[in-house]
């Protein structure tokens, strides 16, 4: 009976939540921008993690050598200019007089320290690509040398994992660096109430001027509905990832507006290609013909997405629409299953983490493959366990999405389909194909953009034929915000920058 009290509280709370909202807030002079997102950051050491909630905070604290604008074009940041000396060498000229949050000045030695540390980090080394040595030429000049030509180098340097750190701060903090980050970005770290709020304050020595809003708070509000309510009640100024069902509410609210934009991420349905029956390409294709992506887009994300036949978003360099577009065709799917030796279907499992959108996608997939006789049970696992289990290959099939953060096909395809990156580095389908390895390797080391485009087209065509995973849809990202917030834009990679935001009125 102890339990019934708990449930009663839960029911009362739910009723309470439904009841509030619509309350107006009359703010005086506002000096704090509150941003609500769905998870707390893991660590603010950019070399210790590569997950979105952390990167979204880190993006305010750090700057990189180069960055991208809204159209994904490379623009200067900490480096004012750069020059390719030969296919393997690039020389960067640093901006002078840039101050870290601890008062130190940015020097070439910090860049060398950062990139060397990045190459040594098992979590983000793959983002450093083929970087081999970093040489300090003088205080404001660094030379980056790669072991073989690396076409997407500049794009990789825009990643939050390539954020420039201060050598002194990192060495003096030791293991605690992730909780006391020091960067050169527009905001500096102030306080972290774990699981709840991360507070930042404006960096007075920021090279591009002091920010108009002196304080930023990242609030961790897990439930999507509650993020919308936080916006409505004035508790948050910006809320990331409004639930599909709440989008209309935000759009129609007199004080709020909704920003939407195509993201660099594709949601996909992956198969463990080392386990029967998914080691058989015909079974994978049968799955492709059993699934109706449009149904998933309409029902689960209320139309915010585009069905796709490529594993990378159309906004990513190297995208090609030439692969097979699977259309739902149960007849064909059954025929393929019969050819593969499973005329009556089979039993299998589907892994997903507890993200509500993914859980719903899982249920639609379950109902769709049931039509061709496949009895699929859904395993909803916690995020950490999901990543561990799928990297060890315990799963049969799984749902996940991949953000091509750098905007270049190499980052979107190499880790996912290369036989050298099985498991946690990205290839959770355990796909192994010599020709694919060769194509990816050549495309990454080529410096001719035309050649790279042609190679990535071949890659995408082959992937749709072999189907180690079925791309479902290109995701659309959104954020809700109060109308008095000016200067906020969605970054295609999802790490929205708060630089340049001000309040009006």
């Amino acid at each position, binding site marked *: 009976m102890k339990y019934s009290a708990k449930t009663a509280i839960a029911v009362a709370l739910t009723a309470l939540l439904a009841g509030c909202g619509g309350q107006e807030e009359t703010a005086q002079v506002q000096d704090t921008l509150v941003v609500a997102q769905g998870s707390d950051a893991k660590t603010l050491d950019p070399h210790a993690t590569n997950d979105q909630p952390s990167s979204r905070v880190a993006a305010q604290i750090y700057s990189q050598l180069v960055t991208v604008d809204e159209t994904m074009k490379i623009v200067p940041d900490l480096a004012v200019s750069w020059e390719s000396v030969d296919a393997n060498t690039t020389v960067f000229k640093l901006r002078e007089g840039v101050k870290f949050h601890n008062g130190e000045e940015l020097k070439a030695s910090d860049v060398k320290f950062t990139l060397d540390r990045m190459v040594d980090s098992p979590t983000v080394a793959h983002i450093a690509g083929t970087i081999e040595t970093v040489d300090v030429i003088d205080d404001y000049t660094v030379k980056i040398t790669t072991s073989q030509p690396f076409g997407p180098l500049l794009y990789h340097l825009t990643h939050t994992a390539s954020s420039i750190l201060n050598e002194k701060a990192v060495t003096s903090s030791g293991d605690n660096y992730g909780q006391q980050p020091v960067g050169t970005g527009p905001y500096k770290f102030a306080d972290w109430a774990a699981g709840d709020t991360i507070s930042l304050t404006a960096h007075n020595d920021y090279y591009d001027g002091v920010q108009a809003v002196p304080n930023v708070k990242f609030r961790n509000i897990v439930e999507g509905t509650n993020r919308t309510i936080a916006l409505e009640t004035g508790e948050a100024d910006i809320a990331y990832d409004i639930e599909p069902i*709440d989008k209309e509410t935000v759009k129609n609210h007199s004080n709020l507006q909704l920003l939407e934009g195509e993201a660099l991420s594709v949601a996909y349905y992956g198969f463990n290609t080392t386990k029967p029956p998914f080691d058989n390409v015909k079974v994978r294709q049968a799955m492709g013909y059993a699934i109706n992506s449009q149904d998933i887009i309409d029902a689960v994300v209320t139309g915010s997405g585009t069905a796709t036949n490529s594993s990378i978003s159309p906004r990513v360099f190297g995208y090609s629409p030439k692969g097979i577009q699977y259309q739902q065709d149960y007849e064909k799917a059954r025929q393929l299953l019969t050819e593969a030796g499973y005329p009556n279907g089979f039993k299998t499992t589907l892994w997903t983490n507890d993200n509500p959108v993914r859980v719903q996608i899982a249920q*639609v997939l379950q109902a769709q493959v049931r039509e061709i006789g496949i009895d699929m049970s859904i395993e909803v696992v916690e995020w950490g366990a999901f990543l561990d289990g799928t990297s060890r290959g315990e799963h049969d099939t799984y749902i996940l999405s991949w953000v091509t953060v750098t905007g270049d096909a190499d980052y979107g395809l190499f880790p996912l389909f290369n036989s050298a990156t099985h498991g946690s580095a990205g290839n959770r389908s355990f796909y192994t194909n010599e020709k694919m390895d060769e194509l990816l390797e050549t495309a990454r080391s080529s410096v001719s953009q035309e050649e790279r485009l042609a190679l990535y087209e071949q890659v995408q065509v082959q992937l749709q034929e072999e189907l180690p995973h079925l791309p479902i849809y290109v995701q659309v990202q959104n954020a809700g915000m109060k109308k008095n917030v000016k200067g906020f834009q969605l970054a295609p990679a999802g790490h929205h920058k708060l630089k340049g935001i001000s309040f009006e009125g």
Partner: protein
Amino acid sequence: MSQQITADTLPEAVLEATRSAPKKRSQWLEVWQHLKRNKMAMFGLVILSLVVFAAVFADLIADYETVVIAQNLSDRLQGPSAQYWMGTDEFGRDIFARMIHGTRVSLMVGVLSVAIAIMIGGTLGAVAGYYGGRLDNIIMRVMDIFLAVPSILLAIAIVSALGANLINLMLAIAVSSIPSYARVVRASVLSLRDQEFIEAARAIGASDTRIIFRHIVPNALAPVIVQGALGVATAILSTAGLSFIGLGIQPPEPEWGAMLAGGRQYLRHAWHVTTFPGLAIMITILALNLLGDGLRDALDPRLKH
């Protein structure tokens, strides 16, 4: 009670004829008469009969394959209408049909987990109470350890470790409620152990097993029945709670708690998705509690002898 003393002195055949049959029926009849006068308990019983009826005839009311689990994405989140009495959920499935089929899981887990818990907990409690001493100490301290862990936490741990499915769910809920039955049974055994008719049975050389199961257990049954009726309510609530957090019944099978969880994010736009399963849980629990209370009132006079 004197009936039982003499019963043991008689040969087996005579015993069978004279004991329980007429006497017991009248005893239960008396309880029933008592219960019938309690309006609230009868109300609970009626509701409960409806739930059992729904569970038994679920397949006739709505077909599992074509109605209960078949998605109809163009009809999602429809409000209640003539076609869908309680509206449709986030996949366009008929909520009424799913609620009816959901009674099966709830009742099955509720009743079976309580039955398992009574069998194990009851035996442990009876043994501990009857023998006393060191054995009692060991058994009851182990039960205390179990009690120290919040029962829902214990259930979560068991389901997470063994995997989420119907059997494990039932075991988890059963295991976590064993200690409370052990305590109830032990308490009544303690009060019976030194009564004269037990002494008499022992004096004429009845074995321990015989004394426990023939004499003690039947007399200790009343509080267990009451606890059991209330326990079914708790078990149903635990099932719903575990399913709500994704550890219970797995989709697409309908279960009340899972239905609540699925509709949670639509609370502000489609109230019916959570309201009806919520009401189903509430009314069923209420019915069981009313019946349990009624049973306690009806059985209590027996305990006072």
